[in-house]
């Protein structure tokens, strides 16, 4: 038997012991890979996403990686704890430290490779599933599955060294202990945690400071970093220090502490404060990131309302525009190349501003108005009055007051009473229809512009030519001489892009949620063996099945929902900042919906895990 064979047999013949470690590693790889696959997706590479969103996602990927490290470390130390006595035996048999290192490194590499393969396969399957399901939810074309060379490279390149490094790290744990304590293994019980008053106060201060800053401070990059750091440190101290105080208070209340199973779960929580603190901390932060990301990205979905135009494309040319004819020909060429039957209309209109904010409006004569909207004929336009097509409120302020519009005319204002206000006609501007006399009056002091409108079928499919025309006329940013608008682009920006960002938000949310869920899961099931033993001996002295279930329920509920609650609070503050400073006006609404959604998921997850956990306990303890 060679040494690698020994390592291999160690794993394959004791699969159960390695299973939790292997599964948790696979899970970490899977999540990382799925996300990498998403970031490097060709559909997202080509222009859909702006740079900031992209950077945010790369940042999220590294967050995932950092938590993967913590996660793998956590499971590796739990795993080694169960094997300490084995290392003790090997040492007694004369295995040198070098050989032990080789053994552990080999084992880790075997398991690492296996979990990388599993994670990548699982990630691919799950990604496909999610791309399909997600696109169904947000009503967009499903993202295609592609061959993710980059994602593969990064995943393997990042995780293989991690497994090798972690195995070196675990050796420190083993070398630092005497053979005797290795042989005794995990029997050695932990000491009761001590909490320090200064640290507890510090924790309160950090948490309070972070939340306070989030409420009142002006937000720039510096303060955002400070808030994040404060909250992160505060969260950790909250779990490692403050929780001890709360538990001590509970213990001091003898009436409560000494009732039924309270004694059991309170002392158990106290005993495991250190383990729990790390876990709760990770889960809280990860969940808060998930909720905030999803909540924010989900706002795009509800932020825009489509403004329906009568025309598929609108082209507005000012008198200063020298290229008007060339641009018009370009548009017509595009239609001909695509064999699109179109109808073109041309109007001379007045562009002017209204009110104190100089909000632009296109003024149309009644004669042309009837051409656009024949229904105008039925409602007779009174002399000196106008019909307005647009919205009275825009981005928070009122455009029209008292059914009157004040139009700019030779640096003076001309008030026109509005006969009625109708739904918007065009997407470029609001429209005002007035009688010929008023039109002529306005003509004197304002610029006359040419308005072209195009109608054709199948607007939403013509994003590419719309984009081409847009680039040709408007260019990258702005053309002072001409305006252009297209339903296809509008639809993309108001429906598809928000859908895409909602989809990304969901994806990030689900990934982080899965990560948090898997932390909880593996925590529960690595402890299961000890818990079973504990309950079995308690059963002997008369703990009933009902009491056991109740106790396990309380412990699990705390595990599942305490970090969740803190994550909700943190998300609330984060969303508050975004609403105040980031210009996301209705971020709270989508935040609440997001959190409710996640709460539902968490509940479902809790119910499923709880039932299998309790079933396992019952079978072992009460047969």
């Amino acid at each position, binding site marked *: 038997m060679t040494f690698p064979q020994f390592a291999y047999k160690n794993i394959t013949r004791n699969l159960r012991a390695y299973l939790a470690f292997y599964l948790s590693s696979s899970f970490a790889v899977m999540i990382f890979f799925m996300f990498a696959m998403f970031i490097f997706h060709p559909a997202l590479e080509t222009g859909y996403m702006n740079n900031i969103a992209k950077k945010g996602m790369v940042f999220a990927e590294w967050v995932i990686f950092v938590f993967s490290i913590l996660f793998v470390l956590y499971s590796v130390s739990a795993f080694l704890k169960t094997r300490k006595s084995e290392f003790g035996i090997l040492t007694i048999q004369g295995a040198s430290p070098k050989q032990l290192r080789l053994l552990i490194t080999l084992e880790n590499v075997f398991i690492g490779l296996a979990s990388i393969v599993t994670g990548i396969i699982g990630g691919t399957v799950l990604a496909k599933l999610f791309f399909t399901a997600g696109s169904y939810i947000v009503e967009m074309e499903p993202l295609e599955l592609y061959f993710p060379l980059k994602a593969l490279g990064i995943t393997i390149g990042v995780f293989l060294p991690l497994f090798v490094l972690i195995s070196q790290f675990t050796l420190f744990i083993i070398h630092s202990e005497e053979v005797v304590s290795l042989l005794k293994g995990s029997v*050695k*019980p*932990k*000491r*009761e945690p001590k909490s320090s008053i200064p640290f507890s106060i510090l924790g309160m201060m950090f948490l309070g400071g972070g939340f306070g800053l989030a409420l009142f401070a002006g937000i720039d990059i510096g303060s955002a970093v400070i808030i994040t750091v404060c909250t992160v440190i505060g969260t950790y101290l909250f779990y490692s220090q403050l929780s001890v105080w709360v538990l001590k208070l509970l213990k001091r209340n*003898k*009436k409560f502490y*000494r*009732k*039924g*199973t*309270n*004694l*059991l779960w309170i*002392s*158990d929580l*106290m*005993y495991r404060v250190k383990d729990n603190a790390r876990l709760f901390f990770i889960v809280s932060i990860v969940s808060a990131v998930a909720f905030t990301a999803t909540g924010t990205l989900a706002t795009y979905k509800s932020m825009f309302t489509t403004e329906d135009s009568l025309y598929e494309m609108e082209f507005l040319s000012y008198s200063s525009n020298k290229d008007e004819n060339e641009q018009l020909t370009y548009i017509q060429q595009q239609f001909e190349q695509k064999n699109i039957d179109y109808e073109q209309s041309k109007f001379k209109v007045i562009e002017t501003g209204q009110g104190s904010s100089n909000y632009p409006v296109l003024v149309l004569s009644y004669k042309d108005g009837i051409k656009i909207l024949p229904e105008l004929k039925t409602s007779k336009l009174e002399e000196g009055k106008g019909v307005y097509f647009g919205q009275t409120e825009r981005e928070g302020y009122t455009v029209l007051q008292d059914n009157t519009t004040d139009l700019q005319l030779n640096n003076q204002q001309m008030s026109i009473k509005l006969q009625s206000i109708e739904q918007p006609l065009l997407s470029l501007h609001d429209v005002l229809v007035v009688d010929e006399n008023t039109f002529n009056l306005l003509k004197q002091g304002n610029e006359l512009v040419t308005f072209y409108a195009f109608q054709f079928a199948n607007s939403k499919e013509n994003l590419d030519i719309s984009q081409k025309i847009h680039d040709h006329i408007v260019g990258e940013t702005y053309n002072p001489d001409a305006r252009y608008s297209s339903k296809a682009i509008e639809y993309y920006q108001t429906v598809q892009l928000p859908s895409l960002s909602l989809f990304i938000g969901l994806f990030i949310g689900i990934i982080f949620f899965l990560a948090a869920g898997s932390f909880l899961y593996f925590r529960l099931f690595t402890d299961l063996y000890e818990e079973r033993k*504990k309950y079995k*001996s*308690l*059963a*002997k*002295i*008369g*703990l*009933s*099945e*009902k*009491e056991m279930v109740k106790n396990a329920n309380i412990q699990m509920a705390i595990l599942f929902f305490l970090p969740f609650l803190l994550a909700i609070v943190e998300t609330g503050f984060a969303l508050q900042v975004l609403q105040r400073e980031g210009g996301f006006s209705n971020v709270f609404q989508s935040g609440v919906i997001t959190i409710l959604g996640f709460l539902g998921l968490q509940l479902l997850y809790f119910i499923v895990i709880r039932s299998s956990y309790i079933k396992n306990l019952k079978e072992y303890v*009460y047969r």
Partner: protein
Amino acid sequence: MADVLQVQDLNKIYDGKAIFQALTNITFNVEKGEFIGVMGPSGSGKTTLLNLISTIDRPTSGQVIVNGQEPHKLKKGKLAEFRRKELGFVFQDFNLLDTLTLEENIMLPLTLERVDSGEIDKKVQAITQKLGIDSILNKRTYEVSGGQKQRTAIARAIIHQPFLLLADEPTGNLDSKSSKDVMQTLQMINEKDKTTMLMVTHDPSAASYCDRVIFIKDGKLYNEVYKGTNQKVFFQQILDVLSMLGGDPDDLSTVRL
């Protein structure tokens, strides 16, 4: 005196690939206040017998009657209540919870019963003084010796004044000095409180504290010995039976008197 424990025609067969009859037609009675020992070589069925009496395991046939009740006919919930109220347990590996202090370990059965906190304090105080562990109540399990742990476990087992105290190798993990302490503690409880006890043990010196010792071999009753007036004579009698029983000489731990 009334019999606290009646064991009648008890059989236990383990199913599986190789069917194994662990106990065959075991019958004996234990009177109120009696301290009875069960001995036998490894694999003789001692622990199986204890598990059946303690209701942790179910017999294939036969009856166990504790204080007039048949616990094996009780429903699950009632069974836990029965164990909690009528039985007390002392284990070889103590079965104390690391998460609790010694005091909390002792009061655990009472808190499960939802006894008033003040009354708990009184009972804990009384019992720990009696057992000489009242000075270490706030310590944790890893801070005290094996003997102290076992006395804590005994305190937990008797704090609710059970009808029957069951002990499974209570000295198995202890050195001779601690074993002696623990056995004297058990004997004192037996004499003062008239608590009925049944103890399974390997250790002839521990068994010599009993009133009567039942020997089991290959799942059958083999012999029984009553204590006269002298513990040393009783100890010698036990050794004699054990040597007749045969079995593994390692089972007889070195003489500890």
